[in-house]
């Protein structure tokens, strides 16, 4: 496996993890009351 493919796979996995981390870790926080009324 070439260095390029290692980089492609690693960067892809890291990118997916970073983009998923915020929405999953922060969870479905509730809206402030004034936004829902």
């Amino acid at each position, binding site marked *: 496996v070439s260095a*390029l493919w290692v*980089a492609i796979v690693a*960067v892809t996995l*890291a990118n997916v993890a*970073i983009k998923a*981390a915020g*929405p999953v870790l922060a969870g*479905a*926080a509730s809206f402030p009351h004034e*936004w829902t009324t």
Partner: protein
Amino acid sequence: MRNETGWGNEGYLAGVRAGLPFALVAGVVAISFGVLARSLSWGVLAPIVFSAITFSVAAQFAVAAVLGAGGGVFTAIAAAVVLNARFLPMGMAVAPFLEGGPLRRALEGQTILTTSWALASRGGGRFDRAFMIGATVPQYLAWTIGTAVGVLSHVVVGDVERLGLDVIFPAFFLTLLMRELRSGGRLTIAATAIAAALAATLVPIAPPGVPVLAACGAALLGLKGRSS
């Protein structure tokens, strides 16, 4: 949750429309990435797969820059990760507006782009989820297809300069102008028109980068007018 905020399903289409001008630019940048990858002897498949599964302009150019300069693979990965670390706080900001369980939220989080995230911001920390997802779709398609065009460009057109890609930034600002003519204030319209004119005038005579900087500076005046 989206309905609680009063944003309906039409947000997807509105997002797609808002993302089209940025898709135009993404496509051109993708072509340049494809040409760069080809010049680095990455072959045909690797750069296209890279764009299709990573879809990250900054990270992909970072990997190309590091590997192209003879740097190590771990350095390239580290550079890309650092550049993409911005998506962590952006994802946390938009998190309350995404839907479903962890898996679905993780999938929706993949649609976070800097441009789409900014376009979907509604002020006060609020985001239009559907708008963000819609805005990402045309940019993803343009990025992936543009990379393929760039990689294969030497076969199709030879010298890529023959494509006339230098007109894309004037075209980008003209596209924004068309939108502002329908909804923008007079200062915003004037600033966007100046930006388009500057880009069109400077492209043939100024060094690379100067037309875009000048046009963006003019467009910022319009943004100031919109916020005031």
